[in-house]
């Protein structure tokens, strides 16, 4: 790909991601943007690695695989914003969109998985097939363990009252109105 095309592609991807960030940030949902973005992009890369190890998708560049995964993970939020469709448990088909919220230290987990997925992709492109397979498998394992360790979604007010972590212990909430720092939410 020529340099100008590369720059244009990079600019387009950055602009698209920035517009997504703005859409999330309007609702104080930066956490969601990062979690779904990293998990989705990482999943796309792992899928590409798996296909390449099987001798397929050799013409698909990593940025396309990562972007496809990223978009897939954000579908429920796009449905919410554009079609007024609330989230539902079945939306876990979109890269564990609901379940990932409840993974312990979710941001750290998806960041680690993303790093492993990137390493796997680089390895497969460099012909290091065993390393690629190992890194990809480890990325999947990290997410799988995180999902297995997650708490279930509460189903009653009594359950919410009984769990201190749902009582909003945030020190950043101050003042009589509970208003947070400027720009919050």
């Amino acid at each position, binding site marked *: 790909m020529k340099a100008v095309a590369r720059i244009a592609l990079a600019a387009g991807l950055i602009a698209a991601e920035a517009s997504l960030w703005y859409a999330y940030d*309007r*609702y104080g949902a930066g956490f969601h943007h990062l979690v779904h973005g990293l998990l989705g992009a990482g999943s796309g890369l792992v899928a590409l690695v798996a296909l390449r190890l099987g001798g397929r998708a050799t013409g698909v560049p990593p940025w396309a695989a990562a972007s496809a995964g990223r978009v897939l993970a954000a579908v429920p939020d796009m449905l919410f914003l554009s079609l007024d469709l*609330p*989230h539902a448990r079945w939306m876990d088909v979109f890269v564990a969109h609901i379940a990932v919220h409840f993974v312990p230290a979710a941001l750290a987990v998806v960041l680690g998985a993303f790093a492993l997925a990137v390493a796997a992709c680089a390895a497969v492109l460099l012909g290091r097939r065993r390393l690629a397979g190992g890194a990809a498998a480890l990325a999947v394992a990290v997410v799988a363990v995180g999902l297995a360790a997650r708490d279930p979604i509460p189903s009653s*007010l009594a359950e919410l009252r009984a769990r201190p972590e749902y009582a909003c212990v945030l020190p950043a909430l101050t003042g009589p109105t*509970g*208003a947070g720092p400027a720009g919050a*939410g």
Partner: protein
Amino acid sequence: MTLAGAVAAVAIAAGLVLAYALDPRAALEDPVRGLRQLDLLYLDEPAPLLERLGHRPGEVLVVVVCEGCTAPAVAASVTVTSDAEVAAAYALRRADGRVGPGYALVDGRGRVRYRTFDPGLADHGPEVAVLVAALR
């Protein structure tokens, strides 16, 4: 993808996560803390203390629990309360004993279907509206 590109991608992602984690807003946005803004109707039980909240059968009610806040602009019945007992009943009492800010959604049958803390609820009318519409 070159090795340099891979390192750059991970470094950028890590930088974004770190920048976010250091932002004071980050603690407010964790969806598990206070089960914030999950946007999934995860409750379905009789709404407590309805007699205090002005619920009319057949109508969706937004119960806003906070001290001196502005309710979100939404086309539905809205009750704003700082009643500590209501806050406790709807699990919107903070660990420091303060009330909200957050809200619960009660459907036309008088069943609570959703509850969330939301420090920015005054600006999140469109988000609330989607959930209210789903309850009609």
